[in-house]
């Protein structure tokens, strides 16, 4: 258990909808927000259709998210220097401008509404037919205008929110242009730092190759030192510029919307400030470079291996794609990996059909950890295996995590595995978060009714007198295309009230680290 609570990945109101037809969406993931810490084994449970697999894939950007953000802290913004940062900084003034425009427009509409309302008061609802008709028409017009005004206000907030990702509450400041320049200077320094880092990495590879061949490359060694110091210097400078920008916080606030005077709102905007990498905004090539850090292990070990490729070659392919290691280095690293996952060196030349399910899954694991990733998504990786093999693979995953400092996002429907393998667990239903807590706490005291039903439904390998018929969950999972209004679980919940049918429960922290979305705990 890691004591450091360093956040590795943060999900911010992540939504994923799949369009089915015009205007109809399959709502696979609804507003998931959570933090994943370094070194933890984070479990996600739910039944088919709950969206857990989709969530895993959206995090890795295998599907683009519909809205929300997925922010990665495993590498610093400087290291990666994605192109979107420059664009966002350039947009800062625009965000503020647009927000102002939208808000002003909405104020205009409000004035019009006030006018129309006075006219409406003059007319009575009863009276002649013509009066009634006019009344009705006017009311409709007012309603439409109110809707538009509301939408414009939302647009204004959205602009500020987008801007706050890059500048925090500074987006509200009058000196936004000056602030923008400061950020740009910081960005330039970051870019220089990155260049220096790249040179460093190249020298490192050369040094490594030489070492394998038994020689020592003196020039590479010298370059390493040089580039290292250069990078550190630029970073310090960038930090300086940014600090200068943030010295403006709270000063010269513009009242762009009515909330702008509220310090709580500034805090909210500050929380939006992304110090990590927003995965959704990366360009395809930048994303590919990050793939070294984020990997996935799939459910079906047979389907993810090319039957015509020996497993040695399959693992080497990873190096081909992401590095420029020479053939000898590749083979060495591959043999090392095979050993680490518990396969024999002779199996380098074996083909997938010659291996058992457990062995194939080990190859999958080897491929995923080949480049020392930080974050691994395991999508039902042990579900297709027999119980004893499952136990072996889980043991292996534990060892690897200790050795390499990995963080796991473990998707499964098997509660038993989750309890003993994962540190924290999230229960999902129809794309929504039901409950999130440390795993032992979840099983000691499950709070959400759905968690309780899941828990009851799991058959225990222990004898009871007769079949336990309590807590059977009736009905089927509703369609994600037309999810129930209010709480998504209300159609099957034994504790459903009228409130549950109309109002979606908010996520509350009921105990330290234990979140639930249920009206029973409001």
């Amino acid at each position, binding site marked *: 258990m890691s004591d450091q609570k360093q956040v590795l990945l943060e999900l911010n109101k992540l939504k994923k909808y799949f369009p089915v037809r015009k205007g109809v969406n399959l709502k696979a993931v609804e507003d998931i927000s959570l933090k994943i810490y370094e070194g933890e084994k984070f479990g996600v449970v739910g039944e088919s259709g709950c969206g857990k697999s989709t969530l895993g894939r959206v995090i890795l950007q295998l599907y683009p998210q519909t809205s929300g953000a997925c922010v990665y802290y495993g590498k610093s913004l400087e290291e990666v220097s994605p192109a979107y940062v420059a664009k966002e900084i350039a947009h800062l003034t625009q965000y503020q401008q647009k927000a102002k425009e939208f808000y002003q427009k909405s104020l205009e509409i409000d004035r019009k509404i006030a006018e129309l309302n006075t006219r409406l008061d003059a007319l009575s609802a009863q009276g002649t037919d013509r009066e009634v008709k006019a009344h009705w028409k006017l009311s409709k017009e007012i309603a439409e205008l109110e809707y538009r005004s509301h939408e414009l206000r939302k647009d204004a907030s959205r602009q500020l929110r987008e801007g706050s990702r890059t500048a925090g509450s500074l987006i509200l400041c009058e000196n936004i242009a000056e602030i923008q320049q400061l950020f740009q200077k910081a960005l330039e320094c970051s870019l220089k730092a990155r260049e220096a880092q790249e040179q460093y990495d190249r020298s490192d590879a050369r040094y490594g190759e030489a070492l394998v061949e038994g020689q020592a490359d003196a020039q590479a060694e010298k370059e390493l030192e040089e580039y290292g110091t250069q990078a550190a210097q630029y970073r310090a400078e960038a930090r300086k510029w940014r600090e200068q920008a943030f010295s403006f916080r709270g000063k010269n606030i513009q009242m762009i919307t009515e909330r702008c005077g509220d310090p709580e709102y500034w805090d909210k905007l500050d929380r939006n400030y992304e110090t990590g990498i927003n995965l959704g905004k990366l360009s395809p090539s930048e994303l590919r470079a990050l793939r070294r850090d984020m990997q996935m292990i799939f459910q079906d070990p047979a389907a993810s291996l090319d039957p015509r490729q020996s497993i040695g070659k399959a693992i080497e392919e990873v190096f081909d794609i992401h590095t420029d290691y020479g053939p000898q280095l590749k083979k060495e690293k591959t043999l090392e990996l095979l050993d680490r996952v518990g396969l024999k060196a002779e199996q380098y030349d074996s083909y997938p059909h010659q291996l058992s399910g457990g062995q194939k899954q080990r190859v999958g694991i080897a491929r995923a950890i080949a480049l020392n990733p930080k974050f691994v998504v395991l999508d039902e990786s042990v579900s297709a295996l027999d*119980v004893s093999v*499952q136990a072996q693979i889980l043991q292996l995953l534990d060892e690897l995590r200790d050795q390499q400092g990995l963080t796991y996002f473990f998707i499964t429907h098997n509660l*038993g595995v989750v309890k003993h393998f994962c540190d924290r667990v999230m229960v999902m239903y129809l794309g929504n978060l039901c409950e999130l807590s440390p795993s032992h706490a979840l099983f000691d005291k499950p709070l959400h009714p759905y968690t309780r039903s899941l828990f009851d439904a799991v*058959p225990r390998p222990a004898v009871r007198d007769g079949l336990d018929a309590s807590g059977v969950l009736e009905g089927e999972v509703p369609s994600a295309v037309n999810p129930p209004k209010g709480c998504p679980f209300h159609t099957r919940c034994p504790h459903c009230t009228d409130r549950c049918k109309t109002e979606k429960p908010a996520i509350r922290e009921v105990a330290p680290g234990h979140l639930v979305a249920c009206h029973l705990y409001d």
Partner: protein
Amino acid sequence: MSDTVLEVKNLVTTFRINKKEYPVIRDISFEIHENETLCMVGESGCGKSVTTLSVMGLLPENGAVRSGSIKLCGEELLGMSPRQLGQVRGKKMGMIFQEPMTSLNPLLTIGYQLTEGLRQHLGMSKAEAHATAVSYLEKVGIANAEERMKQYPFQLSGGLRQRIMIAMMMSLQPRLLIADEPTTALDVTIQKQVLLLLNRLKQDMKTGILFITHDLGVVAQIADRVIVLYSGSKVEEGATRQIFENPLHPYTNGLIAAVPNVDSDEFEIRPIPGTFPSITEEIGGCRFHPRCPYATERCRQEVPQALEYEPGHFVACHKVEEENK
């Protein structure tokens, strides 16, 4: 003592691979009585599915029962012609499978698939069969039964399809129902519904159930008796309580230890070392000895016999034999 529905004695089934015959079921015997569920547990490749196919006479081309006897309600099944077997199947013994998504004909309506067997085996008229089918759909808890009759399988979920399979087979009122991992592909909450349903039907209709699974949790829920199978041989057999409270065979213990238990707080993932032997692998003596922490020279040479240690509790293991002399 209630009636014996199925009696299997010394069953040996082989498969032909690359022109050689390999035994997949190595001499197993068991009985199932009415209103009793016998669970066969084991991992992939242990032969549990092959046992069911041997009983039903549905082995693939390269498999064959070499010796032994299979008696259904006293009638010997081995040696029957395909046509005779066809008359026994469905009427006297039904089978439900693991994959509800592909086990129903996609081009025929549910109604047709349900009434087909009734008209074939029980000689009902179209109207009678329709009414019976609807009543069974209701019995398995399917709402809007009349509507469902006209629908096609692709319009229904996995849980519903599995229930329709159960209705389909049970409506023929067989004496024996064979269920080959029927809930493995289903969600856990749906699984619970299906298990409860099977149990209720078993009691109402006094059927015997042969339930195949690899999930020990399911076994504990639904089984009256349990057989643990390893690589084609029976290593342990007993009442459910005996197996879970007093497991004797090292493999049974290993299996129970490897299951991550939702209830216990103390749990260390303890896998069984080594890998499952393939069909073609030659192993002398006890098939489990390469992975067994207690293996002795005798285990390498001699195949252990199943001996009774408690009434109804059989174990095939030399170590257990030694300890109980």
